[in-house]
Structure formats: structure tokens, C-alpha cells
């Protein structure tokens, strides 16, 4: 029996793969140069042990103390920051979305500049933004609301503009053909198509906002991050553990709720 062999791939593709592999390996080697050698210190084992101990015996008493600084209150504050921040950003995102959406009858520079501004907002570190708002309105959850609200524009307006770009123009033309005014086109054709998409995008962004709201407190912008950073700095692992569990519950619950709502919308 003759040996069966698979045909060789075309030479051009093979060379491309070799080149990609060489670049990849080169990058990895470069990445490891200059990194401090990893060594397990004696105290690392001890710290890991006490963290594990804290995870098993979380500080249950902290869940509710009634003084407004406990886990339940700060988690609710986090939820408030995310809701209000996402709402503010959804409102501001609308004009930005129409600015950046690539549609007909529009000068290309307008679209390009809109997209560039959105990328700039997205890339601006959220923590720096939070610190700037803290300077303006003082530490607390309102600074967190503003940071979430401003930072979310970058992504939300991008998603909105993509929804506008993908909109089916047929419905609008039909309304125009039937003698509808520009207002009729917006109310009867564009809005019914865009609204579910906008709400769905906003809910998705809300899921991410919960995650940022829970860490913004680490720099003083309110929410559950503030007690978290104190607990980590004072190495009180049982308290870190209970806060971590609280964040997990909050994120999972809001993810589930928003996912269920989005499923019904689209």
C-alpha cells in the first residue's frame, strides 16, 4: 500500500506562517527580558495562607452594621453610581453617536473626527478621570457617577453609532414615499428600529459600569471600593473576603437581570 499523505500547503502561506511564528517568538523573548526573576518569598506563602483563611472565614458581621459604612450600604451606593452614571452617559451619547455615525450625505471628516473623539474618551484612564472629578466636586459617590458617566460615552456612543449605521433605510423611505414628514420618519421608522438596540447597548454598558463602580472607590470616588482598599491596606483578609463575595453577588445579580431584559428586547 502506498503511503497516503496530505498535500503540502501553498508555499506562500507557509512562509507567512513561519514569519508570524518568528515575530511571535521574538516578541515573547523580548517581553521576558528585563523582568525581575520571580522568586517565592517566605512571607508570600504566609500572606497567601492568611488570604485563604480569610476567604474561608469571611467577616459576616460587616454585612450590616447600620452605620451606613457597611457592605450592604456601600454595595447599594455602587449600584446607584452605575445606574446614574450609565443614564447620564446614555443621554450624552446620543448626539455623539449621530456625530460619529457613518451615514449618507455626510462629509467624511465629520465622521472621522467623531470617531477619533470617541476613541480618545475611551482611552482616557477612568481612574485619572475619577481623580479629576474628585477635585471638582469633592470625594464621594457623585465623583464616581461623573467618572462613569463621562468614560462610558466612549464605548456607548460607538455602539449607538454602529446601530445607526446598520439601520435599515427602507422603512424610512417608505414613510417618505407615503407622504410622511421628517418628524414622521424619525418617529415611525428610525426610532422603533433604534430604540431596542439603544436600550440593549445601554444595559450592556451598565453591566460594565457596575464593575468599574466597584473599584473607583479605591481612589476615593465612593462605593464599595473605599472599604475594600482600606481592608487590603490593613491586611484584614476576612473583611476583604466578605467585600469580594458582595461584589461577586452584585455583579452576578445585575448581569443576570440585564441579560434577561436584553433577551426580551432583541
Amino acid at each position: 500500500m502506498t503511503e497516503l499523505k496530505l498535500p503540502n500547503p501553498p508555499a506562500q502561506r507557509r512562509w507567512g506562517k513561519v514569519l508570524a511564528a518568528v515575530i511571535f517568538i521574538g516578541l515573547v523573548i523580548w517581553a521576558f527580558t528585563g523582568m525581575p526573576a520571580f522568586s517565592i518569598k517566605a512571607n508570600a506563602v504566609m500572606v497567601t495562607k492568611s488570604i485563604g483563611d480569610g476567604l474561608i472565614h469571611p467577616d459576616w458581621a460587616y454585612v450590616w452594621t447600620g452605620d451606613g459604612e457597611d457592605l450592604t450600604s456601600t454595595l447599594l451606593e455602587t449600584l446607584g453610581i452605575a445606574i446614574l452614571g450609565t443614564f447620564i452617559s446614555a443621554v450624552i451619547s446620543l448626539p455623539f453617536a449621530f456625530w460619529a455615525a457613518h451615514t449618507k450625505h455626510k462629509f467624511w471628516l465629520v465622521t472621522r473626527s467623531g470617531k477619533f473623539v470617541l476613541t480618545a474618551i475611551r482611552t482616557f484612564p477612568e481612574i485619572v478621570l475619577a481623580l479629576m472629578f474628585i477635585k471638582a466636586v469633592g470625594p464621594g459617590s457623585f465623583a464616581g457617577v461623573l467618572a462613569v458617566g463621562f468614560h462610558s460615552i466612549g464605548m456607548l456612543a460607538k455602539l449607538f453609532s454602529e446601530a445607526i449605521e446598520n439601520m435599515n433605510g427602507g422603512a424610512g423611505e417608505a414613510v417618505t414615499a407615503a407622504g410622511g414628514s421628517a418628524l414622521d420618519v424619525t418617529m415611525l421608522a428610525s426610532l422603533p428600529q433604534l430604540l431596542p438596540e439603544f436600550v440593549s447597548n445601554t444595559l450592556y454598558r451598565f453591566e460594565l459600569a457596575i464593575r468599574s463602580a466597584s473599584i473607583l472607590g479605591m481612589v476615593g470616588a465612593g462605593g464599595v471600593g473605599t472599604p475594600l482598599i482600606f481592608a487590603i491596606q490593613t491586611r484584614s483578609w476576612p473583611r476583604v473576603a466578605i467585600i469580594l463575595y458582595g461584589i461577586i453577588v452584585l455583579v452576578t445579580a445585575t448581569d443576570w437581570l440585564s441579560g434577561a431584559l436584553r433577551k426580551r428586547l432583541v
Partner: protein
Amino acid sequence: MEDLLPKQKLNWHKWALTAVLLVALVWSAFITDAHLGLFFTNFSQFTELFVEMAHVDWAYTGYTLEPMLQTIKMSIIGTLLGSALAFPYALLVSRNIVTNKVVVGVFRFILNIVRTIPDLMLAALFVAVVGIGPVAGIFALTIFTFGMVSKLFYEAIETIDPGPLEALRAAGGNRIEIIRFAVFPQIANYFVSYVLYAFEINVRASTVLGYMGAGGIGVYLQQALSMFRYDRVGVIVLVIFVVVLAIDYVSGKTREALL
């Protein structure tokens, strides 16, 4: 004329949802002490910071390159380690590879929990364990990548064509052979694409990890902010912006070529 349009049913749950949303908004404004007035009266302070940032301290650019490169290195290693862990884990939680529902359910539950841990918190924890430096950042990024990429991986694996799997199973192939010859060729390109995507996100994330002491450009960002040197903050933000744009561009082009 009006009668020509079909009557819309009054769907009460839409109104109920709107009412719930309104209550939630008012409640949020109450609990977060939101004062839009305060924001507008102090708006000058906010713009002042922007103006200070705009007076960029160009001489500082040279000092930011070294930590920026460290940030990129951290992201490369973190993405690599996280993806390497994610690959076998994704196979373990794919319903078409592992048919045992209990195993899949338990490991998916663990994955979902890992995914909810915020990246900055991971950084703070690892700084406590391995000390201040880029190693803590690498660990944080590894866990972060693992959670993100595992989910993308298993979703890709579950959408593959079952034909080759069945063919190999019928021909008597074992698990490893099925994965090597039926699963891997179908998803290899998706894997590379997702890893690149994770890398883009990691570069963004790692720029702030340093804020908790986990190495890279974030350390310099934190120093500049705590010394109120907003001219330096401006430089760092610009450098981050340029690097993120460049990496997004290269990675985006590569992903386009792959898919």
C-alpha cells in the same frame, strides 16, 4: 385616516419597566448625593485641570518610555499565560467536548466567579502577595485574561461543526486525537483572534494596574497625580493614547487578515 394604522396594544409591562427605571434613577440620585449644580459651579476647577494637562511637560516624555515598554511586556506575558491556561479550561467547559453536565456546570460556575473579580482588586491582592512590581501585574493580568478568554474560547468551541468530531469518534480516535484533528483546525484562527483582542484590552488595563503598585506606566501615573504634576499626567495620558492606538491598529489588521 387614523383607522388605517393597526391599533397598538397597550402593553402595560413596558410602562411598568419605565416606572421602575424612573424610581431607580431617583433613588440613585438620592443615594449618591448627586448635585448637578455643584458640578456646574465647580466646573472651572475641572477645566483648570484640563488646561494644566494641556501644558504638556514634553521633557518628561523620555522618562515614560521605559515604563511604557514594561507595561507592554507585562501585557504580553499576562496574555500569554492567561490564554495558555484558558485553552484546556475552555475544552473542559464545552458541552460538545465534555458531555458530563455536572463537570461542565461546576467549572462554568467557577469561571463565572473568576470573571466578576475586578482587575484592580486582583492587582491589589497580588501586590500584597508577591510585593510591589511588575510580577504582581503579570499575575493579575493572567487571571483577568484567563476569565475573559476562557469564555470566548468555549463559546467558539461550542459553535464548531460536529461532523469532523463524529467522524473521528467513529474512526476510533481518542480524546486527544479528536481535539487535535477535529476541534483545533476549526478554531485555531478564532483563538489567535481572541488572544489578540485580549491583548488589546490588557494593554489598556495594565496602564492603570500600576496605580496599585503593580508595575508599568501606572506607577508613574500615580506618582504624577499624587504630586499634582498634571503636566506630567498629560504626557503619560498622551503616550498611553498613542501606544493603545498603535496596538489596536496592528492587532485589528491582523485579526481582519485571520478571519
